[in-house]
């Protein structure tokens, strides 16, 4: 606890000392902005304090120590020019402050790339951060060693002593100052661009989280650009001039807003954590497939996905049982496994900017894990149902394909052969006729007539096995043809003329065929058939005037069920609803 609080306490003490010290500075002409006017003094104090306190809160929350440290250090660096300009601080502190002041911009740069969780992603970004730090530190050390403030024509803060001076090199010191000014211009401009790009590239959920810190950062960096430009144009800084004073005010307000943004992020993470743990508690009490929706709402991430792991079939499924691809991290998303007793229950994939996977996992207690395990089991049952439905549909499909094959074989094989025999018999009869062999002529005629009967029977058989016209001309034509040869009068109502998925057409056709024959068996003297399409559903209705139905139409129900449809059978009516998306 002491260690956890020591650093923020130290930073706050530093900040308060600075504020107090600045308040007591009364030098004329002023040697710091805070000493230049009452407004500047207040703005300066608010900016530095809000950075230090925002950073301290982030540090204490323990989400990202890096962000906390960067925030506090930026606050300390913000106050450095005030220390430098305060005569009462003594030569050593003033010289140290002059060196530290340079680090403010590099700290903002690092913060911009490290938000929200403290990690700088990407090799180029890491390299950039290191390079900016190295340049700033190099300039700070160089100026500490070789800049004699007394010889610096633009000096206005502490012009008498430099505690670290080794050897006065006015030319080198001036050149280092120029290099840093121009480098600051470039770094600040890059910072604006990076902040804007990060905001543009973020998902809506991530943008909500990053907006309160990245926008002040972009504004602060813009003010730094203006500051650097002003210094290039007017090397002798005057805190009482309107231009410099205005720039300082904007820098202060942006820094203040950044500090508040850091504090807001702390509150937001706290809110997300507590809604996740509240959700976990709710799940433990009333589990009903709400993990995904609850988490999505708690984190504000609409794209959040929960995939349950089925160890038996070694795959992931979503809560409705549909097989899902293995969740992979990357592209700004993280995949957090939720485990129970060492077993993976589910994997939550969500926006990396919202909560660290570890944080999410920590908020879910053991009771909630039990509930999630139950959800996983429910998903497993649904997955099995999915598999079962798929295999039913495949069995029916295979049966239909077999029927179709048989029908084709009868037409293209047996029927063609019988036609050939019929042709040969007619040739034989013609030859016998020519020879005047009456007996042979008669036999050949008889055989030809029998072949014709066989052809007729074969045709009817093929027609009953599979109606070729269904594939070729659709449900309407096929039902008309069915009505032509039905054993009872069949009145066809409206039938959709458009083509439907083959499995739907087949199922509708066989459902009608079977129902008509069943109605005939119940003594019906009439049946009427109609089909209507409403949205993604085809509803087929068969009414008849036969005796009341006493059994159920098992085959029809099975077939329709295999397609995921439903059958409602009344005493003399049947309605089958088939999904045909």
């Amino acid at each position: 606890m002491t260690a956890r609080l020591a650093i923020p306490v130290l930073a706050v003490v530093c900040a308060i000392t600075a504020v107090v010290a600045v308040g007591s500075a009364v030098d004329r002409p002023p040697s710091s902005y805070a000493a230049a006017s009452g407004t500047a003094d207040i703005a300066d104090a608010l900016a530095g304090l809000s950075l230090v306190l925002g950073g301290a809160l982030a540090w204490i929350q323990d989400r990202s120590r890096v962000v906390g440290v960067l925030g506090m250090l930026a606050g300390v660096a913000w106050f450095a020019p005030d220390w430098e300009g305060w005569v009462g601080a003594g030569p050593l502190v003033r010289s140290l402050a002059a060196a530290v002041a340079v680090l403010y911009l590099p700290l903002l740069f690092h913060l911009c790339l490290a938000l929200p969780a403290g990690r700088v992603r990407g090799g180029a970004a890491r390299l950039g951060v290191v390079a900016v730090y190295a340049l700033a530190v190099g300039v700070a050390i160089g100026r500490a060693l070789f800049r004699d403030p007394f010889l610096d024509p633009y000096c206005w803060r502490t012009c008498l002593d430099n505690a670290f001076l080794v050897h006065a090199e006015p030319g080198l010191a001036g050149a280092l100052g120029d290099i840093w000014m121009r480098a600051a211009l470039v770094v600040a401009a890059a910072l604006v661009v990076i902040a804007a790009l990060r905001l543009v590239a973020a998902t809506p959920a991530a943008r909500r989280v990053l907006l309160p810190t990245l926008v002040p950062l972009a504004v602060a960096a813009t003010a730094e650009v203006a500051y650097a430009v002003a210094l290039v144009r007017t090397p002798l800084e005057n805190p009482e001039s309107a231009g410099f004073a205005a720039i300082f005010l904007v820098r202060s307000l942006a820094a203040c807003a950044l500090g508040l943004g850091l504090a807001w992020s702390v509150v937001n993470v706290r809110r997300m954590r507590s809604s996740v743990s509240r959700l976990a508690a709710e799940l433990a009490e009333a589990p009903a497939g709400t993990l995904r929706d609850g988490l999505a709402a708690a984190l504000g991430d609409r794209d959040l996905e929960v995939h349950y792991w089925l160890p038996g079939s070694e795959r992931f499924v979503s809560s409705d049982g549909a097989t899902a691809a293995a969740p992979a991290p990357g592209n700004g998303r993280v995949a957090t496994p939720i485990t129970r007793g060492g077993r993976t229950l589910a994997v939550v994939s969500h926006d990396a900017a919202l909560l660290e996977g570890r944080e999410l996992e920590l908020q879910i207690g053991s009771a909630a894990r039990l509930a999630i395990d139950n959800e996983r089991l429910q998903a497993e049952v649904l997955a099995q149902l999915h598999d079962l439905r798929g295999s039913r549909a495949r069995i029916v499909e295979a049966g239909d394909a077999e029927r179709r094959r048989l029908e084709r074989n009868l037409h293209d094989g047996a029927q063609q052969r019988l036609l050939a025999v019929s042709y040969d018999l007619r040739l034989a009869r013609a030859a016998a006729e020519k020879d005047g062999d009456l007996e042979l002529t008669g036999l050949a005629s008889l055989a030809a007539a029998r072949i014709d009967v066989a052809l007729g029977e074969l045709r009817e058989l093929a027609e009953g096995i599979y109606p070729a016209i269904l594939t070729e001309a659709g449900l309407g034509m096929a039902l008309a043809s069915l009505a032509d040869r039905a054993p009872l009068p069949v009145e066809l109502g409206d039938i959709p003329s458009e083509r439907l998925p083959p499995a739907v057409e087949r199922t509708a056709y066989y459902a009608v065929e079977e129902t008509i024959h069943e109605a005939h068996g119940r003594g019906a003297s009439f049946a009427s058939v109609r089909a209507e399409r409403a949205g993604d559903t085809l509803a087929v209705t068969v009414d008849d005037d036969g005796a009341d139905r006493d059994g159920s139409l098992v085959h029809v129900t099975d077939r329709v069920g295999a397609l995921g449809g439903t059958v409602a059978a009344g005493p003399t009516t049947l309605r089958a609803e088939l999904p045909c998306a």
Partner: protein
Amino acid sequence: MRVVVADDVMLTREGIVRLLEEAGVEVVGQAGDAASLVRLVRGTQPDAAIVDIRMPPTHTDEGLVAASMIRTELPEVGVLILSQYIEPSYALRLLEEHPERVGYLLKERVFDVALLVDALRRIGDGETVVDPTIVSRLVGRRRREDPLEALTAREREALELLAEGLSNRAIAARLVVTERTVEAHVKQIFTKLRLDANPDSHRRVLAVLAYLRGVT
């Protein structure tokens, strides 16, 4: 008479050609698929084309599609469709598109050379030919209150022959009555069935077939 024959089964095609040639019909070309059939008809301008309904590539209704193309492009060329199916829908589709100079016969009929030559001759005369099995399936359709019951046995026979595409003269010859008697029967049939088509037009076949299928 000059005809072309299109069937993708060579055995059947050559059988038809041989029978036709023996009966004195001139076969001016043979085709194995719909595209070459259409080219052949354009090149030879025959009196009629004998076309299998199922041909490559899809083996479904290429014959019907080709028939429609031929009838539209060359109205003088008749088309006789050969089919494995007793399918009134196909016959009706053929007649609805082109009610003259077309025929729809079951495939095995072609080996009855007298019947085949008669069908070709009728198509050449501008009539239509519908296979008797199609007609009897339509006539035999179950109906709640069958208007055909109002017909006498003789009228019913005349109705079936009419639906097969026979002319009054041909019906008279089949029924061994005078043409005037047939005319009277046909008039009675049209009145009793409340058909408002002209009983003497070429389109009467289509009207009767559509009626038979539509009334329940």
